[in-house]
C-alpha cells in the first residue's frame, strides 16, 4: 500500500509538474500568464493524433511535429495577440484565455468529442517495482519530466539566451540597455512555454483518451501548482507539484477519487489566503532590508 502510494504519487506529481512546466516557464520569463495553456496542450494532442492517424506518420515523428507546430503557434500568439496589449495584465489574460477557449471549442465543433481519440504509447509493457506494477509509459513520463526540469534549469542559468530571457523578466530596461530585444524575448518565451505544453500533452495523453474538457483542467492544474509554489519560482513549481501530486493521491486513496480534484482547487484558495506570494515566492522583504 505504501509502495503503491509512493510510486503513483511520484507519477502523479511529475504529471502535474510537466503539465504546469510550460505555463510556469512563460510566466517566469515574460510575466505573461498564458491562459491558452490548456488549449495549446489539447491542440498538441489532437494534432499528434491527426498526424499519426490521418497522415500516417510514425508515432514519434507525429508527436515531435505536433510539439513544433504548437511551439510556433505560441510565438504567433505573442506576435499577433499579445504584442498590442503587452503590459496590460488583464488584457493579456483575457486575450490568451480567448485563444485557449477558441481552440478547445473549435475541436468540439469539429466533432472531436467521441472516445476514438487516443495517442499510442511510445513503449509497451510494464515492470514490477517492489511489488507495484507500473507501465513503461509512466516511467517514461517520470524520466522526461525530471530531464526537462533539469534541462530548463540549465538553459535559464547557463546559456546566453536563457540568461537573456531571465534578464528581460527581471528588468526590461536593463536588458534593453545591453542589447536584448524585448519582443524577441517575449516571442521566445511564449514559444518555449507552448512547446512544453505540447511535450506534456504527447507524453501524458497516451495514458487515456483525449477529451476536450481536459484542456480546462490542465489550465486549472497549471494555475494551482504554480500559485502554490510561487509564480516565477522553479523550485516552487517542483515542490508545488509534489505537494499537490501526493495530496491528490493520498486523498483519493483514503477518501475516494472524487476528492482528488478538490485538493488542487482547495490548495489555490488556501495559499492565496495564507501566503499570496506562494511557498517559494520571491523574498522581496529580505532584500529591501539589506
Amino acid at each position, binding site marked *: 500500500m505504501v509502495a503503491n502510494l509512493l510510486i503513483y504519487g511520484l507519477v502523479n506529481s511529475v504529471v502535474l509538474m510537466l503539465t504546469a512546466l510550460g505555463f510556469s516557464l512563460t510566466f517566469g520569463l515574460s510575466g505573461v500568464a498564458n491562459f491558452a495553456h490548456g488549449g495549446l496542450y489539447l491542440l498538441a494532442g489532437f494534432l499528434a493524433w491527426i498526424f499519426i492517424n490521418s497522415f500516417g506518420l510514425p508515432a514519434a515523428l507525429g508527436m515531435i511535429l505536433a510539439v513544433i507546430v504548437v511551439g510556433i503557434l505560441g510565438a504567433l500568439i505573442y506576435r499577433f495577440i499579445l504584442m498590442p496589449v503587452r503590459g496590460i495584465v488583464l488584457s493579456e489574460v483575457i486575450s490568451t484565455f480567448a485563444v485557449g477557449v477558441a481552440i478547445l471549442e473549435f475541436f468540439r465543433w469539429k466533432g472531436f468529442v467521441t472516445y476514438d481519440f487516443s495517442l499510442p504509447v511510445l513503449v509497451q509493457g510494464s515492470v514490477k517495482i517492489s511489488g507495484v506494477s507500473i507501465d513503461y509509459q509512466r516511467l517514461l513520463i517520470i524520466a522526461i519530466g525530471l530531464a526537462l526540469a533539469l534541462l530548463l534549469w540549465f538553459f535559464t542559468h547557463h546559456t546566453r539566451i536563457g540568461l537573456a530571457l531571465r534578464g528581460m523578466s527581471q528588468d526590461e*530596461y536593463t536588458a534593453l540597455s545591453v542589447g536584448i530585444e524585448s519582443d524577441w524575448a517575449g516571442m521566445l518565451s511564449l514559444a518555449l512555454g507552448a512547446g512544453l505544453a505540447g511535450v506534456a500533452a504527447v507524453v501524458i495523453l497516451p495514458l487515456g483518451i483525449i477529451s476536450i474538457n481536459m484542456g480546462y483542467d490542465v489550465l486549472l492544474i497549471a494555475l494551482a501548482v504554480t500559485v502554490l509554489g510561487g509564480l516565477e519560482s522553479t523550485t516552487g513549481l517542483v515542490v508545488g507539484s509534489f505537494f499537490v501530486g501526493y495530496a491528490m493521491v493520498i486523498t483519493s486513496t483514503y477518501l475516494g477519487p472524487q476528492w482528488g480534484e478538490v485538493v488542487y482547487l482547495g490548495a489555490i484558495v488556501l495559499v492565496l489566503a495564507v501566503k499570496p506570494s506562494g511557498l517559494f515566492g520571491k523574498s522581496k522583504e529580505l*532584500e529591501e532590508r539589506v
Partner: protein
Amino acid sequence: MLKVKNLMVFFENALAVNDLSLEVNEGEVIGVFGSNSAGKTTLLNTIAGLTRHLKYREQRKGGMRITINGEIKYAGEEISRLKPSDRVARGIVLCRERHPVLRDNTVEENLKLGGYLRKDGEIRQSISSVYELFPALQKLKARKAGMLSGGEKEMVAIGMAMIAKPKLLLMDEPLLGLSPAMQHEVVRGVKEICRLGVTILISEQYARPIMPVIDRGYVIENGTMVVSGTGAELMENPEVKSAYFGA
C-alpha cells in the same frame, strides 16, 4: 563622435527635453548637470534608444503619447530611428540610474549578460578586466546581485556596461545614493574607464565629486540648456556654483 541637435522630447504635452544640442568628442568625459526632473535621464535614455522603445510600446497599447524630434548623430550616422540593440551594437551603452542590476542573478551572471551581443571568449576576457577595475566584485561574484549594497550594485552595473564594450558610455547619475567612500571608488572607476579610451557622457545632480574627471559640462534646467563650458568655467559661474556645486 556624438552630435545631438535641437532634440525635443514630449511626454504627452509635457516637454522633458527642450531644443537641446550638445556635442561629445572622442575621448572626452562630458558632464550633464541638472536638478531632479531637469531632463537628464530622458536625454540619456533618448540617446540610448529607450525612449523610442517606450514610445512604440505606449503607442501600441494606446497609452501615453511620446514625441521625439531632432537629430542624434553618432559617428556621422543618424541613429534616432535605431532600436536600442542596434545602438548597443554600435558601441553606445547606457548604465541606467539607481544601479539597476538583475537582483535574482549572481554578480557573475549579471556581468555575463552585459556581453549579450559579444562572443564567449571576449566576454570571459572582459569579465576579468572588470574584476581588475573593481577588485571588490571578484569576491562577490557568486552573490545574488539583489543582496549587494548600493555601491556594489553600481559597480556591477558599470561592469555590465563595460562588458558590452562601449565606445560611448552613458552614465546616468552613477553616484546617486552612494556613501562618500563608494563615490570615490566609482569616480576612480570612471577615470580608469576614460583611460581605456572610452568616451563618457555622465549625468549628475551634484557635480562636485565628479568634477575632477570632467573635460566639459552642460547644465540643464527644465529640459533646456542654460550653461555650458569647461569644468573650470562652470565652477566659476556663480549661479551654477550655488546650484550644483554646493558652494
